[in-house]
């Protein structure tokens, strides 16, 4: 009896297309890139503001143009998915025990959404009007 174990070599590039759960994971990770790019656009806006009113109006026009708007919509979609997917896994990283019993994950996720809404409304009241 001779041992000769056989090992399949994993795909280094296409592995994440093999399972829907791997695709969801890559989407979650990718969503950070869109949020990062959106942050860079905001910083570019600040830079243009520092250059004077004309430069800033030009920036606003570009942001409201077809390319700017399309990007904003796509980035918004990814930002929502980013928030949703990370809030979904918070019970894993931050489990809560009260009185020796696990608090159901759905309450931890709901608390995050509640915090999100409270902060958003507070920001809106502060600077939105």
């Amino acid at each position, binding site marked *: 009896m*001779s041992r000769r*174990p056989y*090992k399949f070599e994993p795909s280094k590039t296409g592995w*994440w297309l093999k399972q829907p759960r*791997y695709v969801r*994971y890559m989407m979650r990770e990718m969503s950070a890139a869109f949020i990062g790019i959106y942050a860079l656009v905001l910083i570019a806006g600040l830079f243009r503001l520092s250059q004077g009113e004309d430069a800033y109006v030009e920036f606003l026009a570009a942001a409201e143009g077809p390319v700017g708007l399309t990007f904003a919509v796509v980035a918004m979609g990814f930002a929502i998915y980013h928030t949703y997917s990370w809030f979904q*896994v918070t019970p894993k*990283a931050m*489990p809560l*025990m009260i009185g020796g019993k696990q608090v159901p994950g759905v309450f931890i996720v709901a608390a995050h959404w509640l915090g999100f809404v409270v902060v958003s409304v507070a920001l809106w009241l502060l600077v939105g009007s």
Partner: protein
Amino acid sequence: MSGRTIELEILRYDPEQDDAPHFQAYTVPYREDWVVLDAINYVKDHLDRTLSYRWSCHMAVCGSCGMMLNGEPALACHTFLRDYPGSIRVEPLQNFPIERDLVVVMDDFIDKLGSVKPYVVPKEEKAVDDGEHLQKPAELARFKQYTACINCLLCYSACPQYALNDSFIGPAALALAHRYNLDSRDVGRSAREDVVASNPGIWECSFVGACSEVCPKSVDPAAAIQQTKIASTGDYFMKFLMPWKRK
């Protein structure tokens, strides 16, 4: 028994004859109350006695019959034929070398499991006559879910991180390390840190979460690893804030 049948396509590999694994199809009777393991046992008993596979308890306790069923890691004893409309592709657990047919080499996991000291390291040795190490129900509740691990390796098979880098300590071993770290009777956490808090330990995990989705015992290794990351990050900063506390 009705005349209905179902086809199993089983990956075969004979290290003494084959250069590479290949599929072989078997037609077995279909029964509403059969799990995939029953169908594989039928193949072994009636069609092909050369087929090799592991199984023991037939009730999702021993963790021996993990295999890929239509590309998904599952326990063959815990998966009904009735959940598969067509044929079933049966392969050995992916990410492990194939010893023969559906039997994989699990030495890598056994070594890693041992490396995390998966047992209670007591503060001081206690003679049997001195009685038990007592624990309150609330202390047990902290880690009880992680004790359900049956070492079936489905989580390693589901983990793309382990597939790409097999130096990763992996989900089950890290979940068990967490289980003992959380145990009120245990003081072995710092002894486990060298392995657990290393790069091939928790930091190789990028939180895909596939391990927890396929776990047949709801152990949730992904949760264990993320909680260990938080604890380990706390250690890192405490080292700077309170250097005198360093062991």
